[in-house]
C-alpha cells in the first residue's frame, strides 16, 4: 500500500507517490465509517425531506448486507420501478397516467421512487392510500392479509412477484422507507434476504387467490391453542383442518369433542393452469350446536 498526493497548483498539478504510507494507514477507520443506525437515520431524514419539499409520496428502497457494495444494476432499478408502478396501480385498479419516477444518487444502493401526480386540495394523493396497502402486504407474513383491499389482485400478485424476484436476485436484505408530504415520520419495513426468498417461493406459482366463506356443522375433535390449529369432523365424514383466527382464540372457550356450527374462510391459491396449489383454511367462528 502506498499514498498518492495531488497538489493543485496554478502552473500545473504536482503528483507525488510515497511508499511510506504508515501514517495514513494508521488513520484508516477500524470500524465501518457509518453505523447501520446512522445510515437508517439518514434515509429517514432524506426520504421525509424529499417528500415534503417535492409534495410527493416517496418510497426509498435500500439494499444492504449481503450485497457487498454500494451499487445496484440498471436491471434492478427498471424491474423494481416497473413492478412498483403496477403494484400501486393495481391497488385502486386505475392506471396511473405516468409511471413512478426514479431518483437515485450515483454510487448509492438506494432507489427513491415517487409518485408524479394526483395531489388534491388537502395535499393528499391516492399514492398515500396505495402505499398504505402495499406496506400492509409487505408487513404481513401472509400475502392474503392486505390483499383483500386490493382491486386488481391478479395484477398485484404478478407485480409483487416481479419485485420480490428482482430483490431475490441481488442476494440482499431490503428496506422500504415510505414518506408522504404531510407526514412527520416515515414508515419502515425491513425484509431479510431469507424472508424475501421465502415469500418469492411461496408466491411464484400463484396466479390469483380465490376466497370463500363456508358455514359448516361438525364435531370439534382437535384444538391446539399454542400452534393455533384445529380439526373439525364434518357431518359427511370429511375432516376440515387449518388455522384458528386470532379473534376466536381470545373470545371463546371450547369443549372437546363437541358439535359446533362453524364459519370457515377458505383461500384457494390458483396457479397459471387454473389448478389449486394450496388451500388455506381459517376458522372464524364457532357456535355450539344444539341439534
Amino acid at each position, binding site marked *: *500500500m*502506498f*499514498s*498518492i*498526493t*495531488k*497538489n*493543485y*497548483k496554478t502552473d500545473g498539478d504536482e*503528483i507525488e*507517490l510515497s511508499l511510506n*504510507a504508515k501514517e*495514513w*494507514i494508521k*488513520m*484508516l477507520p477500524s470500524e465501518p*465509517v*457509518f453505523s447501520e443506525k446512522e445510515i437508517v437515520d439518514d434515509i429517514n431524514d432524506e426520504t421525509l425531506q424529499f417528500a415534503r419539499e417535492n409534495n410527493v409520496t416517496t418510497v426509498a428502497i435500500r439494499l444492504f448486507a449481503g450485497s*457487498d*457494495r*454500494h*451499487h445496484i*444494476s440498471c*436491471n*434492478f432499478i427498471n424491474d423494481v420501478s416497473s413492478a412498483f408502478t403496477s403494484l400501486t396501480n393495481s391497488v385502486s385498479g386505475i392506471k396511473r397516467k405516468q409511471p413512478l419516477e426514479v431518483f437515485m*444518487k*450515483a*454510487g*448509492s444502493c438506494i432507489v427513491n421512487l415517487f409518485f408524479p401526480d394526483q395531489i388534491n386540495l388537502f395535499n393528499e394523493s391516492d399514492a398515500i392510500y396505495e402505499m398504505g396497502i402495499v406496506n400492509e402486504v409487505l408487513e404481513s407474513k401472509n400475502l392474503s392479509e392486505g390483499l383483500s383491499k386490493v382491486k386488481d389482485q391478479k395484477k398485484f400478485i404478478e407485480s409483487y412477484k416481479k419485485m420480490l424476484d428482482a430483490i431475490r*436476485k*441481488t*442476494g440482499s436484505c431490503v428496506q422500504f422507507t415510505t414518506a408522504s408530504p404531510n407526514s412527520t415520520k416515515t414508515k419502515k419495513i425491513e425484509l431479510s434476504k431469507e424472508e424475501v426468498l421465502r415469500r418469492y417461493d411461496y408466491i411464484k406459482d400463484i396466479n390469483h387467490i380465490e376466497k370463500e366463506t363456508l358455514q359448516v356443522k361438525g364435531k370439534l375433535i382437535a384444538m391446539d391453542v399454542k400452534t393455533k390449529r384445529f380439526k373439525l369432523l364434518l357431518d359427511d365424514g370429511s375432516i376440515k383442518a387449518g388455522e384458528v383466527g386470532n379473534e376466536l382464540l381470545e373470545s371463546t372457550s371450547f369443549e372437546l369433542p363437541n358439535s359446533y356450527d362453524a364459519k370457515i374462510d377458505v383461500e384457494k391459491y390458483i396457479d397459471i393452469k387454473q389448478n389449486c396449489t394450496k388451500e388455506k383454511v381459517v376458522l372464524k367462528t364457532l357456535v355450539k350446536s344444539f341439534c
Partner: protein
Amino acid sequence: MSDKEIFMYVKELGNLYLYDVLLEFIYPRVFVCEDSFNSKFLFYEMSSNHDKDVWLVSRISKLEYYDLIDRKKIDSKNI
C-alpha cells in the same frame, strides 16, 4: 487504452485511467484506476482540500481479486 481520458499521471506508475467509482457520495470516496497494462489500483480518499488531495492506494495484485471491484461482472452474475 488510448481512447480513454487520462485521470492522472504518476511518474512511477505512468498514465492512470479512471475505471470505476465505487463510493462517490459517501465519504470516504473509493474508486478504481487502471494503468496502460490494465492493472487495477484501489484508491481510498484520506483527505480532500481545495489545494491538496491524499489517497491511500493499493495495487490489486491478484486477478481473482478483480471480481471484488468489477461491478460489471457482479451485475452479470446477479442477472
